[in-house]
C-alpha cells in the first residue's frame, strides 16, 4: 500500500487570515493525506524545524499579508539549511501576478489563488510530491 503523503500547512507572516489554511488542511486530510497545521505567526525557522520534525514531503505556505517576497525565500533557505531540498513547496493566498514568476523561480511548485478548487489543490500536491520523488 502506498504511504500517506505527509503535509505541513504553515502560516508564515503575521496575518491571522487562517480560513484558507484550515480549509485546505481539512481538504487534504479528506483526500487521505497526513496533515499537520502549524497555527499562526510561524517564522521561517519554525516552519523548517516543523517540516524536519514531522518528516513531511510537502509544505504548504498560506499568507495574505503581502510579506511573501521576503518570508518565502527565508523559509526556503531554512529548509535548505536542514537538508530538506526534497520537500515540495506550494503556496496559497493573494499574490500579485507580477510576483508569480519570481515565486516559481525560487522553487514554489504550485500557487493557489482565490477560486482554486479542492481537486486542483489535491492533484497539484500529489504531482509535486511525485516530481520530487523522481
Amino acid at each position: 500500500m502506498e504511504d500517506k503523503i505527509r503535509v505541513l500547512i504553515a502560516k508564515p507572516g503575521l496575518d491571522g487570515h487562517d480560513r484558507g489554511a484550515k480549509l485546505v488542511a481539512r481538504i487534504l486530510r479528506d483526500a487521505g493525506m497526513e496533515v499537520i497545521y502549524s497555527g499562526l505567526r510561524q517564522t521561517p525557522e519554525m516552519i523548517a524545524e516543523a517540516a524536519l520534525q514531522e518528516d513531511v514531503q510537502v509544505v504548504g505556505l498560506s499568507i495574505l499579508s503581502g510579506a511573501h517576497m521576503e518570508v518565502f525565500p527565508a523559509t526556503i533557505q531554512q529548509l535548505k539549511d536542514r537538508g530538506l531540498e526534497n520537500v515540495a513547496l506550494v503556496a496559497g493566498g493573494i499574490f500579485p501576478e507580477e510576483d508569480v514568476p519570481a515565486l516559481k523561480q525560487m522553487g514554489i511548485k504550485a500557487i493557489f489563488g482565490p477560486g482554486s478548487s479542492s481537486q486542483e489543490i489535491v492533484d497539484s500536491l500529489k504531482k509535486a510530491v511525485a516530481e520530487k520523488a523522481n
Partner: protein
Amino acid sequence: MPSRSKQEWRDTTLEKTLKRSPERQERFEISSGTEIDDLYAPDDLEGIDYDEALGYPGEYPFTRGIQPNMYRGRLWTMRQYAGFADAEESNKRYRYLLEQGQTGLSIAFDLPTQIGYDSDHEMARGEIGKVGVAIDTLADMEVLFEDIPLDKVSTSMTINATAPILLAMYIALAKKQGIDPKELNGTIQNDILKEYIARGTYIFPPRPSMRLITDIFKYCGEEVPRWNTISISGYHIREAGSTAAQELAFTLANGITYVQAAIDAGLDVDDFAARLSFFFAAYGNLFEEVAKFRAGRRLWAKIMRERFEAKEPRSWMLRFHTQTCGHTLTAQQPTNNVIRTTIQALAAVLGGTQSLHTNSYDEAYATPSEEAVTVALRTQQLLAYETDVANAVDPLGGSYLVESLTNTLEEEAQNYIQKIDTLGDALAAIEQGFPQREIQESSYRTQMDIESEKKVVVGVNKFVSPYPKITGLLRFDPQIAIKQKEGLAQVKQNRDSATVSAALDKLEKVATGTENTMPAILECVEAYATIGEVCDVLRRVFGEQKEFLAF
C-alpha cells in the same frame, strides 16, 4: 387575519402550479441551513406582541432602530477603513477621503503595530506598512494626523492587543494640538476575544488582556467620556466562515463577557454600557442580514436590561458599524464586486447601521487603489442620496418574511449563547475551541457548497467568462520599510532615554500591581517610548498567549 390560512393556499392554488412546474431547488435555506418557507403570511406572526417584539424606533427593545427618526435626521457615518505604507501616505489618503465627503476616519494599522513589534524587530520582516500604516512612536501619529484637527473628526482605530498604546498616543496627540481629551470622538476596536476566535492579533493571555480592556473602560469613563471604548466585532467571525446566527451569537456572547468583566472590576453597568459599540458584516443575503441586525438589537436590549439590570435606555442600545463582506469579493470578473458591495451596503442600511464601510472592487487583489475606494464611497452616497432607502425608519419592519427571520435569527443566536453559558462564558468556550470549531465547520460547508455548485458564485463557478484585468493596483514601495526604520532610529536617538526608562519602569510596577495601566502607558508614549518597548514590558509581566488551536 386573512380569511384562509397559508396551508389552505398551499393545498389549492400553489399545489396546482407545483404539479405543472416544480421549484428550482429542493430546499431554500438561510446561512445556518435552516429552511425557509415559500411564503410568509400573517399566520407566521400570530401571537407576536408588537410592543414586546418590536416597539417604536428609539424605544425598547429597539428592534426597529436605536434613534427615533434614524436617517431622516442624520445619515449613517460613511467611514472607509484605510491606511497603508507610512504615516505620510496614509495622511494623504485621509485628507483625500475627507475632501470627498467622507465623514469619519478609520485607521488600518500594519501587523507589527497590531502585534506589538517595532519596525526594526525581526518579526516585522516583510510586514511593515503592508496591511495598514506602520506606527512605532508618537512621532508617527503626529505625521498621520497632520492638518487633521482631532476635535473635528471621529476616528475609528482597528487596534486590539495594542489598543491602550494607540489610544494613549491619540490622547497625547490631542493634548499637543491643544485639544481637551474630553472633546475626542472615536472608537478603538479593543475586542480581544474575537482575536482569539478569528482575527489572530492577540499578544497576552486572556485574563490580563481583559484587565487592559477594563482599565480602558474606567479611564475613558473619566477622561475621554465620548470615546467608544470597544467595538465588539462579529465581522471577523463571519469572514472566518461563520453563519449569520453564529456571528450574532458569538459577538453578543463576547459582549456579555466584557460587561461581566467590567462589573467584576467594580464598574457600574450604566457607567460604561453606553460606550460599547459593535461591528458586524453585511452579506448579500439581504433579508437574512436585515433580520440579523434587528434581532441583534432586540437580543442585546434584553440582555442589558434583564441580565445585567442596566437602568439607562442608552445602555440597552446595540449601536454598530457595518462592513460589507470582503470574503464574497472575487478575483474573477472584479467589476461584479461593485454590485455585490451595493447589495450588502443596502442590507446594512435597511438594518439600521450607524456607520458603514463599503469594500472596494479590487480587494481580492490588493489594498484598494484610490479609484476603487472612490467607487466604494460613491456607492454609499448613491444609496443615501439617489434612493429612498433612508427616508422612512426600518422600511422592512412589518414584512412577514423579515419579522419571521428576525425571530429565527434571535432564537438561533440565543441557543448558542445558552450553550456558551453552559461552558462558562465566551472565554471558557474559546479555551475549549467551541466557537472556532463551529466556524470551521460552517466555512467547510460553504466551500463544499461552492464546489458542488449548490451555491452559485457568479463568474467563479457559473457564468464564467474571460474578464479584463484590473489595472492600477496599489503596489508597495520597498523604500517605505527602510524609511520607517530610519525614522524610528532617529526618534530613539532624539528622545530623552532616562525619561523613557523611568516611564517603562513605572509601567512595569503598575502592570504587576492592580492600578489602572492607562496613565502609565500615556506617560510612556509621551516620552516617545515605542510600541515594542511598551509591549515588551507587558509581555514580561503578563506572558504571551499561544494560539487556542482547534484543528
